[in-house]
C-alpha cells in the first residue's frame, strides 16, 4: 500500500471495520492537532521529556547522586558539567534528566487519580440528581473551599513526607474542579435524545453513565487535565520546595530549587536550572492542552 492510498484509507467516510473506523477518526483528530503549530511544539517537548526519562542512564553524563565536594557550585559551562554543579558537587544536568522521571511519575499518578475521581463523582451526581447530587456536590464544595496548598500540607504532615503522599495530597485537592465539569456536562447530556433512546432499550444507569456519558465527558476532562498539569507540577515542586514532597537526595526539581535557594545570590544557576525545567514542561502541557481543546471539543463535532 503506497502512502497516498494509506492516507485515503484513513480519511475515508465509509470505514469497513471497527478498527478502520477507530483508526480513521483517530487520524482525523491527529491531522487537526498537527495543523496547530504551538500544540505540536508542546507535544514535542513532552515527547522529549518522556524520552529523557526512559533513557536517563544513557543520557546523563554523570551519576546524579555522585558527590564531588572539590568541584561544588561549579558555574555553567564548566567542562564536564554543562549546567554546573550544586552545593554537593552533583552534576545539575544529570539530576535534571533523572528528575524528569519523578516529574512524569507525579504527573501520571495525579492524572490517574484526580480526573477519575472527579469524573466518577460528577457524572453520578449529574445523572442521578436529587439528594445524591446535593450531597456529592456539597462535599465537592467543601474540598473546593480549602486552600489547596494548606490542605496538601495538612495531609502530608499527617501521613509523612514523600512523593506518593505528595501526589495523594495534590490529587485530593485537584479533583473537585473535574467533578464540577463532569457534572455540568452530564446535565446537558442526560436529557439528550440518544440517552432517552438507550434508556428505552432497557439500559440501566451504570451502563448509561459508563458507556454513554463518560466518553463524552472524557474529552473535556483530558483538555482540562492537560491545562492543569502545569499547576500540578508546580504544586509538586512547591511541596518539594517546602520539604514535604520528595526527600533528599532525590533529584526532584522542586526539591532542587529548595536546595539551591541558599546560594541564589552568588550561584544563581543552582536554583534557576530546575526552575527553567519546570517552566518548560508546564508551558508544554499548556500548549498541548490548548491544541487538544480544539481537537476534542465535542461541540465542534460533525461540522
Amino acid at each position: 500500500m503506497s502512502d497516498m492510498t494509506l492516507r485515503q484509507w484513513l480519511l475515508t467516510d465509509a470505514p469497513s471495520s471497527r478498527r478502520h473506523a477507530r483508526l480513521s477518526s483517530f487520524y482525523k483528530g491527529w491531522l487537526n492537532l498537527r495543523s496547530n503549530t504551538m500544540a505540536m511544539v508542546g507535544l514535542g517537548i513532552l515527547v522529549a521529556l518522556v524520552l529523557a526519562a526512559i533513557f536517563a542512564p544513557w543520557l546523563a553524563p554523570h551519576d546524579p547522586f555522585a558527590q564531588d565536594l572539590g568541584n561544588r557550585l561549579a558555574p555553567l559551562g564548566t567542562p564536564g558539567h554543562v549546567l554546573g554543579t550544586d552545593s554537593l558537587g552533583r552534576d545539575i544536568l544529570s539530576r535534571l534528566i533523572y528528575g524528569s522521571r519523578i516529574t512524569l511519575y507525579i504527573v501520571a499518578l495525579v492524572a490517574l487519580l484526580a480526573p477519575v475521581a472527579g469524573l466518577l463523582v460528577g457524572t453520578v451526581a449529574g445523572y442521578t440528581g436529587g439528594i445524591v447530587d446535593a450531597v456529592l456536590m456539597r462535599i465537592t464544595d467543601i474540598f473546593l473551599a480549602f486552600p489547596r496548598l494548606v490542605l496538601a500540607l495538612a495531609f502530608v504532615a499527617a501521613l509523612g513526607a514523600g512523593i506518593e503522599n505528595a501526589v495523594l495530597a495534590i490529587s485530593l485537592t485537584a479533583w473537585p474542579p473535574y467533578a464540577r465539569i463532569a457534572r455540568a456536562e452530564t446535565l446537558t447530556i442526560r436529557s439528550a435524545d440518544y440517552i432517552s433512546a438507550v434508556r428505552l432499550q432497557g439500559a440501566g444507569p451504570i451502563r448509561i453513565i459508563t458507556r454513554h456519558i463518560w466518553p463524552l465527558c472524557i474529552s473535556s476532562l483530558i483538555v482540562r487535565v492537560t491545562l492543569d498539569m502545569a499547576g500540578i507540577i508546580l504544586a509538586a515542586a512547591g511541596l518539594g520546595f517546602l520539604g514535604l514532597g520528595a526527600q533528599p537526595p532525590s533529584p526532584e526539581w522542586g526539591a532542587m530549587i529548595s536546595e539551591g535557594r541558599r546560594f541564589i545570590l552568588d550561584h544563581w544557576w543552582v536554583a534557576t536550572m530546575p526552575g527553567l525545567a519546570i517552566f518548560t514542561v508546564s508551558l508544554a502541557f499548556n500548549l498541548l492542552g490548548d491544541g487538544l481543546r480544539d481537537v476534542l471539543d465535542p461541540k465542534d463535532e460533525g461540522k
Partner: protein
Amino acid sequence: MSVALRIEGLDVWFGDGRDRVDAVKEAGFEVATGESFGLVGESGSGKSTILRAITGLARDWSGLIEVEGKRIEGARRDRAFFKTVQMVFQDPYASLHPRHTVDQVLSETLSLHKLGDVDARVVRLLDDVGLGAKFRFRYPHQLSGGQRQRVAIARALAGEPDILLLDEPTSALDVSVQAEILNLLTDLRAEHGLTYLMVSHDLPVIGHMCDRLAVMKDGRIVEVMGVEALRRGEAREDYSRDLLAASVGA
C-alpha cells in the same frame, strides 16, 4: 380486534406546586393492534408528552395506560415493556450518540435485548432499513439526516417490538427524504405487522400514514376522527377545521 394501546383520563404534568404545568389533560384514545394512529397538534399541545408518558420519560402522570392489556404504573418500565414498545425520536441529529458507530449503537441494543447472533442481526437490520452493510462502521457525522433516521429506526426495530411510537420522525428532514422515510415506515409496518402511534404537526403526513387520528390543543384531545373524514374535510370541531385549512393552504 384486540387493543394494542389504551389510554384513559391521562394527565401529565411537569413541576410542582406553583410551577406545575399541565401538559396533557384528560386524554383518552385506543389504538387497535396493527393500526396506525396519529396525534396532531401545534407545538405545546402535549402530543409528544403523551409518548413520553407511555415510555416513562415523563415521570409525573395519572390515569390509565394499558399496553397489550397490561396496565402500566409510574415511571419504571420492565424489560418486557421495552420489547413491546419502542420509539423513534424527532431529531436524528440528536438521537444518535456522537461517539458511537452505527455498529456500536445496534450491537448494544441487541445485547440489551439479550439477542444472540449479533453480527448477522446488525447486517439484517441495516438491510431492513435500506442502508446496507457498508454503513455499519460509520459515525453519525458521516451520515446524512435521512440515513441517521434510518439508523434510529433500525435501533427501534432491533428488539422486535409490536408497537412503534413515532415522534415527528420526519419534521427535521427535507421533503424528498421525508418521502423515503415515510415509505420505509409504511413497508416496515406491513412486513412486521407493527402498530404505530405517530405524532406530527403536519396534517398531510398524518393523513398519509394513519388510519385514525386525534387532534390536540392545549393538552386536550379536541376530536378523534378517521382519515377518510379528514380527507373529506369533515372535521366536527372549529379548531380541527382551522388546522386543516391552514395545512391545506385554503
